């Protein structure tokens, strides 16, 4: 859709168009719509998820009225799945909402292939036995599975997914690669023209911090058979090495070099595990 809906403006600013598109394509199956399940679905529905299917075999009881605001007095005696579904549909009419009045345990046992149609199954308040069965089913069908159980003020959420690729990871910190430990020819040549131990104090404190790092890294790798500082102690040692190069307290370039030394530590290139992986 070319024009993003104004309704989703605030969340589009978090996950962008692709994130929103992924959400709108997703089909969710909820098992048991008690407070935990309902609350979960509420957040997905508000966000514009593609479709929801609520599976719950129980009827609304008076006790439910105090802890699930998606059911009200008029719902008592009716299918809980139906009532919750109706409420959720109201929250966002762009979402396709369906319900099935059946106990999840029964469905898991009698119709495992039912789950293959979904992107994610959210299974709440299931007992371990059912969770194990469901996990097998979802793994085989390549369906993402999330378990949730709550007990009063405590609970757990457990995700069961296969290894998958995250393409747009939207990192908070972008680690720029200055090629400090593997400078390209021009940088290397430039660094070579500068003498770190120049006697003129003004020149000394104007050496660019990048050059300081390039030179010190070279020194280090020579002394450590090509390896970069990797342990905490080594990194500390590296910083001390930088500090030792300072001749005066006000040398900002050295301070910058020390602060930026982390840019040297991160290993470069493609992770060797990835290179080995044949999958």
């Amino acid at each position: 859709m070319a024009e993003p809906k104004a309704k989703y403006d605030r969340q589009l600013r978090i996950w962008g168009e692709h994130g929103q598109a992924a959400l709108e394509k997703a089909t969710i199956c909820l098992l048991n719509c008690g407070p935990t399940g309902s609350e979960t679905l509420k957040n997905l529905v508000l966000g514009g998820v593609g479709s929801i299917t609520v599976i719950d075999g129980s009827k609304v009881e008076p006790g439910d009225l105090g802890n699930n605001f998606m059911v009200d007095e008029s719902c008592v005696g009716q299918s809980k799945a139906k009532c919750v579904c109706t409420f959720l549909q109201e929250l966002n009419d762009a979402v396709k909402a369906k319900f099935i009045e059946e106990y999840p345990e029964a469905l898991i046992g009698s119709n495992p292939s039912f789950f293959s149609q979904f992107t994610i199954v959210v299974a709440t308040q299931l007992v371990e036995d059912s969770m194990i069965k469901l996990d097998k089913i979802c793994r085989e069908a390549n369906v993402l599975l999330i378990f949730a159980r709550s007990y009063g003020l405590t609970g757990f959420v457990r995700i069961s997914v296969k290894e998958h690729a995250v393409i747009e990871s939207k990192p908070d910190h972008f680690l720029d690669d200055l090629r400090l430990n593997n400078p390209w020819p021009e940088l290397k040549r430039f660094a070579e023209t500068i003498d770190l131990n120049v006697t003129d104090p003004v020149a000394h404190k104007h050496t660019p911090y990048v050059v300081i790092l390039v030179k010190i890294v070279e020194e280090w790798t020579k002394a450590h058979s090509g390896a970069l500082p990797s342990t905490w102690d080594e990194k500390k040692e590296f910083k001390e090495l930088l500090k030792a190069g300072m001749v005066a307290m006000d040398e900002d370039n050295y301070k910058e070099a020390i602060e930026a030394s982390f840019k040297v530590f991160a290993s470069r290139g493609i992770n060797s595990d990835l290179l080995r992986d044949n999958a």
Partner: protein
Amino acid sequence: MQHYTFDCIYLQIDMDTIEVSNLNRQFLFRQSHVGQSKAKVARDAVLRFRPHISITPYHANVKDSDFNVNFFKQFNVVLNGLDNLDARRHVNRLCLAAEVPLVESGTTGFLGQVTVHVKGKTECYECQPKPAPKTYPVCTITSTPSKFVHCIVWAKDLLFAKLFGDKNQENDLNVRSNDSCSSSENKNNVFERSDDEDWEQYGRRIYDHVFGYNIELALSDEETWKNRTKPRPMYSRDVLPDKMTQQNGNADKTDDLSPASAMASLGLKNPQDIWCLMENTRVFLEALKLFFTSRKKEIGNLSFDKDDQLAVEFVTAAANIRAASFNIPLHSLFEAKGIAGNIVHAVATTNAIVAGLIVIEAIKVLKKDGCYRMTYCLEHPSKKMLLMPVEPFEPNKSCCVCSQTPLSLEINTHRSKLRDFVEKIVKAKLGMNSPLIMCGLALLYEVGDDLEKDMIENYTANLEKVLSELPSPVTGGTMLTVEDLQQEFTCNIYIKHREEFDEEKEPDEMVLSGWTQAPPEKKDDKTSIGNGASTSKSLPTEPMYAQKDTEVKEISDGTASPGKKRKLPEFSEGCTLDQSNDADETMNHKKIQKLDDDDDDLVMLDHWGKDTCKKQRSQ
């Protein structure tokens, strides 16, 4: 609000109406409610699932004088869901005065926090001064922008204001044009349309002036560009050589039902597209024309509003053209709107988490549990925890709000006027709404509804006087008492006379001290990898360009993770949370007040400085 299952009396204050963009998370509201009062609709929604409780909605501003200390005294606890620092400080003071515990909170995207403030036991909301809103140096905005946000501020606070706002307002747009070569006559007439110009000609002339001529003028100062990339002057004849053809829709049509939009006229459909220089130029000219034709009544009175589509289009285009000139990457309307409108990203889940935490703390308050926690929601788990609970600290002994510590102010008493003191210190820094200023027994200034005419005249006159020439002279050594009666907040300020101030670092020529200030953070905090700190981009900023009050140092908002500078707390073993689900049955006759403001909840993140570690923990 759905969590509150007490049989109590609620009052909620919210001056806002429901907007479409609220609907992705504010689930008590529906599409059909857009435009209605939030307070009222929320009340109705809650009553539907909890029919027998008492909720009173107030569609009003929490700073109204009706909500005084006596009003707040009615409650056992106050819950804040406000979206700006000013209102939060105001409520903080009222809660202190009324001796009612306050549960504060805020969210931004995936981050959020809940804090508890109990007078005498914990820090008040202002014990840790919150970082000042981000401002930019004047010269960066007017002459040497390096980031897109600088261009937005220029387009919004200078160009837009100059063309469509109050003409009598001082404006730095032509600050460079104060050259001997341009006569002042010339300067004033540049923005006036002459009778023989049509709107396109006028638009092009403005374009050429601000993007062409002004840049050429700036380039003539070699010194500025010695270490900077020089900007390129832009002229409309080069970017858009042909006259714009008449687009569909006659601008003079008065019965046009949909609001004017340059994008619509030009057939630009997707706000997420980044327009090229030519498209930006088209939008600039078209938007300008539409303002002056279909919205001419508003000209002279307009201020930028992020929900004003045409204003957003104009500002986006203008900012982009300037950015192109200065080699800064261009942005889409969607992005520009977010920056210009200080839009805070928001999602249902964080709000749900924070709401739950608010209730947990509120229950503790009502049970007089004492085991309060400040809880921070992180974006990524830190040491395997997504929620970081922290024990509250004892009140800050040098907090001028809850500990009534006196402050001192360095000021040139022969040069600074009372007006400067009132606006910048009393209102802005101290957050007072309706201040009263006394020097000894003499009343120098006050704000009030029932003041007599001669008193008002007296105060107005006083504002324009320099301090040393006030009826009761204020000089070095004088102690001023500043009060806000509604907030019941009194502050004593000891005046120290100082002759000279650093033009760049202290442009206001006033330095307030005695209240522990949050130390400024380094601009590039991206160096803090691996310790859970979030980027500054996720943090809200308030109006970015304060006309005369810009400070040279960019004080960025604190990072989200207080864990950055202090170790994680140990959980005290003696503290047990109430595990029962039957909390609702036991809470009778307790009163809770919920305060909301705008739709966009901001997180006011505490800045955890070095001295935090030394403070006492409260038990």
